């Protein structure tokens, strides 16, 4: 027997809701189904679950859930709602004789005048609850939610349009969402170590939920930077391994390294397995099938170009010989050697990342990463063209910033075949005819996503748009 539950969502990141529900249910080994007509774009959603315990597990782990109610009914009018609620009498009749209760009436996109709130409560009089009303510590809380259309961009006087809701929902509170408070707990501004590449905490937490992070799992971020996703992953019990081409990003100033200091702040330092400096395209992994998940925010190349070891233009044979000679002779200063780097174009990097993940993930493991893209030009095939056999796309959620956006892509390794390590050579790249919208993202970004602006001189491309971008 399945039961229906009403989810009240936080008003953000609509496209991340279903992937998060699916991931958290998979993590706990159960499934859910959407009730007919439920639309994940809307703030209230009705789902079927096998047990109340499942509803509680979702409320404790989903970042986007504000609360979960046992669902009693809905309608486009109160008449419809009451009919549905009467039909579900079996769900609430045991509360009639003596259960203390509290009743709340609220709205989404609207505020209901006090007087009408009282009228709504009185309209439920037929339920005949005999227990006392207890505003502070009730045994059950009944919630009635009116959903109004988005009034974005229009100005309305308070209470205007009262009663013309799209839909009204009713149910009994099972549990308030307790994972949302993690957004504040992992707030970047309160972190002892962060940088200009740090990822806001809500998004880091959503990414982490896509990895199915849990005790005993091993998770890797190959573009570790300041480690934003490592903290929530370790908090959920996983061991985390991080690497970055630029050790300073992980280290910061002072001792111990910045990431370890921040991990200590969250009480998870013992689960940061290790940090290593290397170029992911020249990596020292001895074997594959190591990780349960790879979670990462690859360099978009906006502030500093995404890079890999090598030179943009090869040195002439004479200069190369001279250079190597110089390298061999012992140096008086103790400066660490900093190898030259060359740019790493985003679509090549994204395709390489999928192949690397196929090598490094255990069967069933997940790759979770952000791909920035140009809104007007994006097509589904952009993602499909970077997939390879053995890997399956399971979620693709847009965070929209206007002319550009970024997509949180979740890919599962479905194959149990042992794959060779990727070559990362542009010559052997899986080339597809298709040119994805994220190709040359850096250049497009600096052109303000216009096609008519000059290509090679950022200065003449007008002012750089102020989006919350980082690389």
């Amino acid at each position, binding site marked *: 027997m399945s039961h229906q539950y009403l989810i009240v969502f936080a008003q953000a990141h609509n496209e991340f809701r279903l992937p998060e529900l699916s991931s958290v249910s998979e993590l706990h080994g159960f499934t859910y189904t959407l009730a007919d007509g439920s639309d994940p774009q809307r703030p209230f959603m009705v789902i079927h679950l096998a047990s109340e315990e499942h509803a509680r597990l979702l409320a404790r782990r989903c970042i986007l859930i504000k609360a979960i109610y046992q669902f009693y009914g809905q309608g486009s009018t109160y008449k419809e709602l009451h009919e549905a609620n009467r039909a579900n009498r079996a769900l609430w009749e045991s509360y009639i004789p003596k259960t203390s209760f509290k009743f709340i009436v609220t709205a989404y996109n609207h505020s209901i005048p006090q007087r009408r709130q009282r009228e709504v409560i009185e309209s439920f009089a037929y339920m005949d609850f005999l227990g006392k009303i207890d505003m502070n510590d009730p045994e059950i809380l009944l919630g009635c939610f009116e959903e109004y259309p988005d009034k974005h961009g229009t100005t309305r006087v308070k209470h205007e349009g009262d009663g013309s809701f799209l839909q009204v929902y009713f149910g009994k509170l099972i549990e308030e969402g307790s994972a949302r408070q993690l957004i504040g707990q992992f707030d970047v501004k309160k972190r002892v170590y962060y940088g200009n590449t740090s990822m806001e905490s809500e998004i880091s937490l959503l990414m982490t939920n896509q990895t199915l992070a849990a005790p005993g799992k091993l998770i890797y971020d190959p573009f570790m930077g300041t480690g934003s996703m490592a903290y929530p992953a370790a908090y959920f019990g996983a061991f985390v391994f991080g690497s970055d081409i630029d050790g300073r990003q992980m280290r910061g100033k002072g001792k111990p390294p910045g990431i370890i200091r921040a991990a200590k702040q969250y009480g998870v330092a*013992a*689960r940061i397995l290790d940090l290593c400096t*290397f170029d992911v395209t020249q990596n020292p992994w001895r074997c594959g099938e190591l990780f349960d998940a790879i979670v990462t925010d690859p360099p978009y190349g906006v502030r500093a170009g995404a890079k890999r*070891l090598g030179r943009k233009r090869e040195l002439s044979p004479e200069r190369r010989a001279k250079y190597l000679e110089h390298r061999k002779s012992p140096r008086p200063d103790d400066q660490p050697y900093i190898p030259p780097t060359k740019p790493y174009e985003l679509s090549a990097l994204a395709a390489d990342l999928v192949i690397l993940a196929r090598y490094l993930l255990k069967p069933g493991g997940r790759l979770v990463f952000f791909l920035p893209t140009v809104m007007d030009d994006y097509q589904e095939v952009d993602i499909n063209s970077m997939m390879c056999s053995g890997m399956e796309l399971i979620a693709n959620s847009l965070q929209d910033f206007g002319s550009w956006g970024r997509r949180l892509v979740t890919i599962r390794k479905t194959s149990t075949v042992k794959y060779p390590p990727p070559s990362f050579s542009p010559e052997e790249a899986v080339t597809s005819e298709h040119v994805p919208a994220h190709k040359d993202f850096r250049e497009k970004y600096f052109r303000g996503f216009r096609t008519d602006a000059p290509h090679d001189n950022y200065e003449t491309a007008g002012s750089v748009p102020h989006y919350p971008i980082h690389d």
Partner: protein
Amino acid sequence: MVRLITHNLLACHARGCTSNNFPLRFSDAQIETRKADFNADFIRAFMPKLEWSALVDAAKQLGDTSLPLEAPDMLDEEFLKNLHRVLLEIHIEEGSMTCPNCNHRYPISNGIPNMLLAEDEIA
């Protein structure tokens, strides 16, 4: 940091260095030990990934001779706890790791190994 679990997964990756490039040899290792949460399932599941003799040697280099020369078939609690300690609680904070084949030296500073290759070493 640089725990022995990590050391067991890193091979020299300089260009052309494809055999006898593992395990890397520690030198001038400064060690610290720190407690880590014990998760028997994690350790058990990781066993097949380990190069056992490399682990035994690395531990010995650092003065720990508690591991049996052969990985046992029976993984009892006591064995798993000891393996946990060796893999996760010994940290090399300073020193370096050297490739037995090409002698490339990877320095460790503040617990972070620098595995970057020089220009003439990349594939």
